[in-house]
Structures are given as structure tokens and as C-alpha cells.
């Protein structure tokens, strides 16, 4: 599991961890029942304060994404992605905003952008079928 911490964003470190883990779970790279590294190990890997990692894990626990098994560590909960539709929509909205801004800068209007998205979606389904 590879996480990246950036200090320039202005986003608090624990929030970066929370978001990245959420993304990994949502995108399937972390499956249900997978074990997450212990707090100390992750802190050493990322060179950040263990208390920050602990805070991130706590938040994810309260959100129901992770469960802590006593004495055995922290695991992704089996319930699948418990993110509500609204939360998932919010993640996508963020990405959509970024895409729209970029498109505007590059002088693409909404029609051209939608065409582009459709084309890419077709490409993905083709590759899925090949697999």
C-alpha cells in the first residue's frame, strides 16, 4: 500500500491519509478483510507522527471503513464500501470540478467534453471485455 503525503497542499496530514485510504477502498485496491499496516509501521514509512496516523485510523473506524480486531490489528471492514451515495457523489464532484476547470482552460466547451468522456467510456468497456 503506497500512500503519499504532501505538505504543500495545506490539507492536514491525517485528512490526506483518510482520503487516500477511502479512495483505495472505493477503487478496490484494498479489499474487504485486507489488513492495514500497524500505526507505528505506517508512521515510520511515511515519516509522520504516529498520533496523526492514529487519528486517521480512528476517523476511518468511526466512518465504518476500518475495523480494529483486538490484538490482531486493523482491517478493512467486510461490509464493502459503506460510503453513502452522497459521499461518493462528493468525491466525484471534486474530480468533475477539476476536469471542468481544465477543459475551460484548454478551450473545450461542454459538448466536446461530454463527447470525449463517452469515447473514453467506450474504450474502457472494450478493454474489460477483452479481459
Amino acid at each position, binding site marked *: 500500500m503506497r500512500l503519499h503525503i504532501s505538505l*504543500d497542499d495545506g*490539507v492536514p496530514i491525517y485528512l490526506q491519509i483518510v482520503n487516500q485510504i477511502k479512495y483505495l477502498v472505493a477503487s478496490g485496491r484494498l479489499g474487504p478483510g485486507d489488513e492495514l499496516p500497524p500505526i*507505528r509501521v505506517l508512521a515510520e514509512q511515511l*515519516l509522520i*507522527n504516529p498520533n496523526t496516523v492514529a487519528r486517521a485510523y480512528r476517523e476511518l473506524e468511526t466512518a465504518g471503513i476500518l475495523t480494529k480486531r483486538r490484538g490482531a490489528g486493523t482491517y478493512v471492514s467486510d461490509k464493502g464500501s459503506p460510503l453513502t451515495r452522497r459521499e461518493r457523489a462528493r468525491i466525484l464532484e471534486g474530480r468533475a470540478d477539476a476536469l471542468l476547470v481544465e477543459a475551460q482552460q484548454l478551450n473545450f466547451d461542454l459538448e466536446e467534453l461530454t463527447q470525449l468522456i463517452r469515447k473514453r467510456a467506450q474504450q474502457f468497456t472494450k478493454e474489460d471485455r477483452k479481459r
Partner: protein
Amino acid sequence: MSSSDKSEHPVQVEGLTRRFGKTVALDNVDLAVRRGLVFGLVGENGAGKTTLIKHLLGLLKPQTGKVRVFGLDPIEKPEEVLGEIGYLSENRDLPTWMRVRELMLYTQAFYPKWDEAFAEDLRETFELDPSARIRSLSRGQRAKAGLLVALAHRPALLLLDEPSSGLDPVVRRDILTAIIRTVAEEGRTVLFSSHLLDEVERVADHVAMIHKGKITLSAPLDEIKERHCRITLRFSESRTAPPELAGALWWEGRGQEWTAVCDGRLDALKQQAAEMSAEVVEEGVPTLEEIFVGRVKTGRAASREV
């Protein structure tokens, strides 16, 4: 101080003042470090960080005020206090004629809690040759040796004075890892002073800024970052000098765009900007370095005016 205080705050400083001749090194400093946290002390050169740390070790006597480490006075009871502290000094003050193994043996005699296996493990991790003399070690290796003897007895308080100064990235990584490991173990506290603010930002729970012997800011890191903001304004016409806005610590820019780091009161600032017919182009959270530089420059400007 009550006994619960003692265990909750390994370091307590109240109203500490220290003069060297005419210069005031520390001016009414108050500090309380909670157990199990990483406490970062930042300040310019000569701001008083080393002086403060020396008071905690009992190397300087407070002229006014009180210093308590683990609830004890470090001057009255150097044995008890120093036996629980692991100290890495700024200039790696190690006897140059000793060999690495001798240094380990010598330091072991003073600390009953010395863990031999752990020390050996550290020595291998740091790749220090046991029969090498300290004078033949490079700067980074000396820092590692100093860190080894500071960590091996698992001190309740790890005191590091500019641990990363002048070191290569590999050694800096080792030092940060050591700090993280210390804090990850129950109840152990770290206090370190540093210039490298990106490191402080990574590992510190609580940050205190010292400027000319006074503590200008002491708060949890999250709070500091929430409180400050970086805002970019675009003015209708070019300016040669930054505008006078309350709450802005530090300005940077030219022409029509000016960026400020400001201390709270974001709404008031936006209002003032609107009054000056400037639009807010960008808003963000500043890094600790920007906050620090902003505060220091404000301090300097203020002192110049005075």
C-alpha cells in the same frame, strides 16, 4: 504542582527569564509539554532555543521563574532527572578520543535502564564500526553515535537540539524514525528544536515559536494551521508597496497581485480587501515555514519601528 500534573507534564517551565550580561536570552517563558507528544521548538538562530533546553538539563540556573522536569528541579536532582533524559546536543559534544564501543560501554554505566540488545541493534542499523574512534567519524556518523547513546536507555524524555542540522537526507530520515519510534512507545515524550520546518510539520504534535527569547506562539500544530491562511489579492492597479491590512503578517508579490499570510480574522481581511477594490484570487493553508517566516518578519519590522 499536584502529582497528576507531574505525570501529565514531564516538562513545566513557568516565568523563566535569563540574562547574559545585558542581553536577554529568555523573557518570561512559559512552557508545558504533555506526556506522549512530540513538541517542536522553532526559532531563529539566537532566539533562545538552546538556552531553554540547557535550563531543562540543569546546565543553567533560572534567574527568575521555575523549571520542573518530571516534577523535579534538574539542578537539585541531576541524577534522577538526567537519568530519564536522552540528550543530543547541537554540536554533538562527544569525546573525540573514544571509540564507539567504549562510548557505549561508558554511557551504559550511567543508565540502569540501558538495553544492550537494542543498543547493538541500533549500532548495526546505523552502521557504526565499534572500534572506530569518534574523531574519525563523519558528521552524520557522529550524529548517529550521539543519537544511539541517547536512545539506547529508552528515556522517558528525548531532548534533541537541532538534530538534523548539517546532515544528509539518509541520516535525517534515521533521526525522524527514531523520534517516531520513541513516541510510539507508551508514555515517552520528545522535545526537539529545529530549523527544518518541513520536518517539524511532519512529526510535531505541538509547536512553539521563540523570537528574541519570547514565546510568540505555542499551540497544537493542527490549530496553528487552521488559524492561519494564505490569501492572494488582485488589485485594480499596480502597487509598489504592499497594502496595509490588519491581520496580515507578511506580504509578497509585485504589480497587481499580492499574497499575504494572515493570522485569523479572514472575514475582516476579505472585507478590507473588498473596500480597497481588490479581488480574492486564491485562498489556501500556508505551510509552517510560511507562517514562521511571516511571524518573524513581523516581529523584526515591529522591533525596527520601536
